[in-house]
């Protein structure tokens, strides 16, 4: 019996202690008319058989050469990261409610919180949220709780923010009567239009979201955007890529000091690029950091350092009065779990890379993307979409339908980019491409050759 250790003798003795004749008797409180019949499920497999099946399924999917980013990025993952994260002591532990028996996880989360604050420049970080998109939704809810000078429950959501994130924010925050107002982007530069914001200056808004780099990979003028928000008593939610922060100004330093406040008020984002594999979309983890001033409005678990009864330092979950198991219907969120195992991986990743390694990853990714764009723009019918400086992603415009070109590339084992036609129809045929440090010149050459063929081939295949 799979994973059940009971022998016939064990069962007989246990039933004897309970005082029943058979295991079925243990279900005698379930009304008879509700009892399930036989289930229609497959026969059990041995480990050898499941191994074979999964191997076959994996082989169908293969290992194409990938040039999509759009919120999930392929970086080298050091061997120690998952070798340690999948140790049973991390992998099969529960939430560290019994602090004395969970000091490993708790200290690790404290180290993680410290690292996220080092990257973002913020004062406090939580222990993580589900993913980047839901972290943005939680940041919006938090902004509504935190901004006492606004009563509008309206949030400015630039169109240059990842459109799926905007959908998720609407799905999660929309049920609490929070609305989102779009802000257009500059069709030439590919960054949020400050002039579009100026039109809203006299109105009441709760928060402005700024994604850096934005969904197009372009670098936003974060100082001007942050100052505009603060001048209008609007909270600034920064949505950032953690790898890019090794090169880019941390959100805590965006803008200048206005009324005693400088920088983003809430910082959130997708943590996947810190040692978590692409894995068809998850599990990843969302991160969130803020000013100490707002810590009691922050959702999710937080670990603090304290002392034990003998005065020795130790770690425990803290500020639990914000959470659902204490506050029930008045909690800051219904969230219970964080993404503990992914945070374990990310903390090991950041420790191995350190400040120099992380900067090298960011720098190499940016250079490779520059190399990729230059190479692809040499192909007839391909040109850059926007002029603003990029980090490790950029939009390319094609004079043929992107879907056809991408399909032709996939037949050659290349996932060439993300088709933007549905998300941004005004761009015409456009795709978003990404290269990280994992793409070498030989990969870029292969892509350029395949794209040359795809752009010159006839449509029909």
């Amino acid at each position, binding site marked *: 019996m*799979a994973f059940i250790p009971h022998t016939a003798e064990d069962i007989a003795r246990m039933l004897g*202690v309970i005082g029943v004749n058979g295991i079925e008797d243990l279900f005698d*409180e*379930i009304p008879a*008319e509700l009892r*399930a019949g036989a*289930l229609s499920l497959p026969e059990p497999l041995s480990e050898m058989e*499941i191994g074979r099946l999964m*191997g076959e*399924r994996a082989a169908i*999917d293969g290992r194409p050469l*990938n040039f999509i980013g759009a919120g*999930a990025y392929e970086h080298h993952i050091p061997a*120690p990261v998952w070798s*340690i994260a*999948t140790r*049973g002591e991390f992998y099969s532990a*529960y939430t560290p409610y019994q602090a004395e*028996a969970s000091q*490993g996880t708790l200290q*690790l989360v*404290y*180290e993680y*919180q*410290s690292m996220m604050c080092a990257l973002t420049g913020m004062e406090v970080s939580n222990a993580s949220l*589900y993913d*980047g998109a839901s972290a943005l939704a939680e940041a919006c809810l938090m902004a509504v709780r935190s901004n006492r000078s606004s009563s509008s429950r309206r949030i400015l959501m630039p169109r240059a923010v990842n459109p*799926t994130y905007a959908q998720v924010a609407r*799905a999660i925050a929309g049920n609490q009567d929070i609305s989102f107002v779009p802000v257009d982007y500059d069709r030439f530069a590919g960054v949020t239009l400050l002039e579009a914001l100026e039109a809203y200056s006299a109105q009441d808004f709760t928060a402005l979201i700024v994604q850096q780099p934005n969904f197009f990979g372009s670098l936003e003028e974060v100082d001007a955007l942050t100052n505009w928000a603060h001048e209008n008593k609007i909270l600034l939610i920064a949505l950032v890529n953690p790898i890019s922060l090794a090169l880019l100004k941390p959100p805590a330093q965006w803008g200048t000091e206005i009324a005693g406040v400088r920088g983003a008020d809430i910082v959130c984002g997708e943590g996947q690029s810190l040692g978590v*594999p692409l894995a068809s*979309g*998850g*599990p990843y983890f969302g991160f969130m950091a803020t000013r*100490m001033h707002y810590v009691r409005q922050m959702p999710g678990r*937080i670990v603090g*350092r*304290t002392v034990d*009864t*003998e005065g020795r330092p130790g770690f425990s979950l803290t500020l639990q009065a914000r959470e659902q198991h204490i506050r*029930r*219907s008045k909690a800051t*969120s*219904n969230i*219970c*779990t964080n993404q*503990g195992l*992914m945070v*374990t991986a990310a903390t090991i990743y950041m*420790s*191995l890379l*350190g400040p120099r*390694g*992380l900067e*090298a*990853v960011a*720098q190499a990714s940016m250079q490779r993307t*520059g190399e990729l764009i230059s190479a692809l723009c040499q192909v007839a019918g391909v040109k850059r979409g926007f002029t603003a*400086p990029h980090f490790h992603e950029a939009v390319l415009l094609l004079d043929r339908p992107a879907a056809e070109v991408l*399909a032709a590339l*996939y037949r050659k084992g290349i996932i060439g980019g993300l088709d933007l036609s549905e998300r941004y129809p005004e761009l015409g045929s456009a795709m978003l491409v990404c290269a990280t440090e994992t793409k070498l010149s030989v990969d870029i050459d292969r892509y350029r050759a395949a794209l040359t063929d795809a752009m010159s081939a006839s449509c029909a295949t």
Partner: protein
Amino acid sequence: MTELSLREPLIFELSKPGRGAVTQFPPNVAGSVRVPENLRRRSPPALPEVSELQAVRHFTRLSQMNFSIDTHFYPLGSCTMKYNPKACNTYAMLPEFLGRHPLGPEPQGFLACMYELQGMLQEITGMQAVSLTPMAGAQGEFAGVAMIRAYHRARNDTGRTEIIVPQAAHGTNPATATMCGYTVREIPCDANGDVDIEALKLAVSPATAGIMLTNPSTLGVFERKIVQIARTVHEAGGLLYYDGANLNAILGKVRPGDMGFDVIHMNLHKTFSTPHGGGGPGSGAVGVSARLKAFLPLPIVGKENARYRWLTEGDLPQSIGRLSGFMGNAGVNLRAYIYMRLLGRQGMVRVAEFAALNANYLMKRLQAIGFEAAYPKRRASHEFIITLKQEHKAYHVSAMDVAKRLLDYGFHAPTTYFPLLVPECLLIEPTETEAKEDLDRFCDAMASIREEMRHDPEKLASAPHTMPVRRLDDVRAAKQLDLIWKGSAAYQEPLGS
């Protein structure tokens, strides 16, 4: 130099400028791309600089300070801490699965697994359709209640503003109802742990949007009046939400769909044995009856002409929308798929059978030792509650003291002080994967602790004695917030000063 201890310095304290795990750094890439001056970072982030061995040793040592299923019996009620088969991790981590970008062309091998998983979950729960998108139980709950709201709205039934929740419910239930814009109406349970039907009848009204129920309830007993509850709520025009926290207790024995539930969430990290990972990632798949199908969260896997594809907004225009950046915790779902295929038809039914056998055996044995079961006249489901209110009165020991002392005996503590209704309670869930010998050892420890209550209560009050730390000052943690490392000087300063 001090003597060896279980403590491990912070990774930051191992750091020295110029050190690094350089084989992990990418080679330099020539190029001319530069970050504009006004957007550049001025000083490097304060991350540790350590060698690869230092990092490996540090995190390995930290892992050794954890209790886990792989190392300890972990009878944490309501959490279903059963064995996480190694095969589930090994085969979910095949490089083809790990390397796949979520927005690329639809991977047929992976989607075949997800499609079959949806089907198996449908069959086990008796629901009509499943979405694997929610990333945790609480997000599954959110999706479920949001679908109830969308359903009423689609019918222009806008006066329904309340969700009914029994007092014994998980805290997530009322928190979720609030997140979905509902007010919460709590109803009591009767002395035997069933919902108070009279109170329910008084609570339902044209304002009732639905009820959230766990069955077996958090009191560790099967809700016997479920058919009557379903009828009462449905007749009032409300829908029934099933919190799948305790699904392990009934796999193959009774299905939420057959009990009359309209929407359920499943905790794949409990019932289908994906890892808890020290607090996530979970996965909170939702299942629905026919009338809520149109509102399921996206994406869902569909199959057309032998090809699998993601169903999106075009397929389900009334969907409550997307809850994650891509498609939920895909890798967790893959582990659940592997687990379910390993168990198959026969194994799935045995889960509930042996979970119930272990729970009822443990309850009887602890009663024989002298502990008081909270619901002695009831069958235990897959878990049960003992209450220490007598011991609390007689020896001034608390449930927390017993929990902490159990750590010294090498057992993870049961859930304490939940459900809130039962004073000084321990909620104990052994799960089906524990052997009789381990249950017996746990009973021996409880018997021994019972002796200590009488003869040496101080030993309990000051427990644990063998962990890396003693009991922690949680008040100080919340009042003198120390949430990040602020440099070596700050750390070396004695914390007590």
